[in-house]
């Protein structure tokens, strides 16, 4: 049994920050092609700040997964900017509200992903197929629900991450109708949505953290 506890949540944020930094240029290039070329830098700035605050000895120790996610939420909100800042900020904030416990069972992981999706939709009012990060979060939430009965929370995470990755891939042919890419109309087709891609990276990092990475 993998334990998805506070330490896991912290490893998740560390792994996400490292992976987003590695993918910074890729994300920026996607956004340069169909947006304004700042998504990689925005996410890197935000997640670096999250890690910095997690590592700050002056911060109160976290006792629940939700506390880690709340700190990540407020930090992302105040450092990312752009569309992604409030979207990821709200996602994490909503997720933090359903994870106020020391560790998560499978159902807790499902609740986390669903709450994040709800937060993004509440803020951004996008639906599936509009070529946004919703196209990664929604299949992730669905896959998580279907895996809810798994014994081990890591299996739920794996299902969600895999679905997010294919959802992100599937944004490539889409024509954007939300966010900055929508101004390109047909010209937005052919490029993966940067926010969907960063979603896939962050959920993959959650799996890696459950497997022990990011310590």
């Amino acid at each position: 049994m993998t334990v998805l506890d506070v330490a896991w949540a912290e490893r998740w944020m560390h792994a996400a920050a490292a992976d987003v930094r590695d993918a910074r240029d890729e994300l920026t290039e996607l956004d340069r092609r169909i947006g304004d070329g700042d998504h990689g830098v925005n996410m890197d700035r935000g997640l670096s700040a999250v890690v910095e605050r997690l590592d700050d000895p002056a911060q109160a120790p976290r006792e629940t997964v939700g506390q880690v996610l709340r700190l990540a939420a407020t930090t992302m909100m105040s450092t990312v900017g752009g569309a992604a800042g409030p979207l990821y900020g709200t996602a994490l904030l909503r997720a933090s509200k359903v994870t106020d416990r020391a560790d998560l069972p499978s159902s807790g992981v499902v609740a986390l992903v669903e709450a994040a999706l709800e937060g993004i939709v509440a803020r951004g009012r996008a639906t599936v197929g509009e070529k946004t990060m919703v196209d990664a979060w929604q299949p992730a939430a669905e896959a998580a629900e279907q895996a809810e009965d798994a014994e081990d929370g890591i299996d739920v995470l794996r299902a969600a991450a895999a679905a997010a990755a294919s959802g992100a891939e599937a944004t490539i042919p889409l024509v954007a109708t939300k966010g900055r890419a929508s101004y390109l109309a047909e010209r937005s087709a052919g490029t993966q949505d940067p926010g969907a891609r960063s979603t896939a990276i962050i959920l993959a990092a959650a799996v890696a953290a459950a497997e022990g990475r990011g310590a």
Partner: protein
Amino acid sequence: MKKLLDDPAQAVDDSLRGFALAHADAVEVRFDPTFVLRAGGTPPGRVAVVSGGGSGHEPLHAGFVGAGMLDAAVPGAVFTSPTPDQVSAALQAADGGAGVLAIVKNYTGDVLNFETGVELVEAEGIEVASVVVNDDVAVEDSLYTAGRRGVAGTVAVEKIAGAAAARGDDLATVAALAERVVAGVRTMGVALTACTVPHVGRPGFELADDEVEIGIGIHGEPGRHRVTASGAHDITRRLLDPVAEDLELASGERVLLFVNGMGGTPLSELYVVYARAHDLLAERGVEVARSLVGSYVTSLEMQGASVTVLRLDDELTELWDAPVHTPALRW
């Protein structure tokens, strides 16, 4: 990429520091979180007018902080909207007790961050009204997009709302006037070259030597379509016609004509475009009653221009003419 900058991550702060030093009489720059406040603050009892958005569009918005226009501006990272904590700090600092009008350009990021920032200060009991500027006629099908973008017309909204606040109008009146400007202002832009965001290090798109991008936004993103470059005469028509048609300008109407440079365009070329746009309006029987020519809403060093038309009535004209004392606009 060559720029007169040092660390790209510090570029906005470095620039704001110079801005604060150069205009200490008119503005004050606060950091942590970052925003720009009118020197001396909003006169007590007056409505405050606040705007903001990504950096890289200078002098918008910080250059318009001062008497008769904005009480505060909230600059984000380059082409990235500011964060809610910046927005709420600026709204709070600007409030003079009579409420705040937030002027937001219609981009998902700006709308979302301002929304959250506004929520935060409303919780503190400050009255806030918001107006979303969406003057860019290049976005044809706003049903299938995030809606029309806010571009150069923002200057007119900020000037007129600022003048209304300065003469003592209450929040509802200032907001209604801002909405009237939004309803009557349209813009269309062209890019001759792309711009390079400092931390990206390469241009936002590539244009062949004989191509221009019609319907460009202000974030270095590609526009709606490309045409072969064809001189100021033809290009100006491609900008002015959609604007005039969207506004349904009728013969006998009076307008403000604003030709805006995107940052890397010589002033002399803006006047060539202005002359041509003036002719085209005259052909439609439209009188250019007020003018503005210059680089006010830019995209870093992009070469290009936009043409903005605002339908004027007596009150809007009077508010446009009202005194303004800011680093970038003064009369």
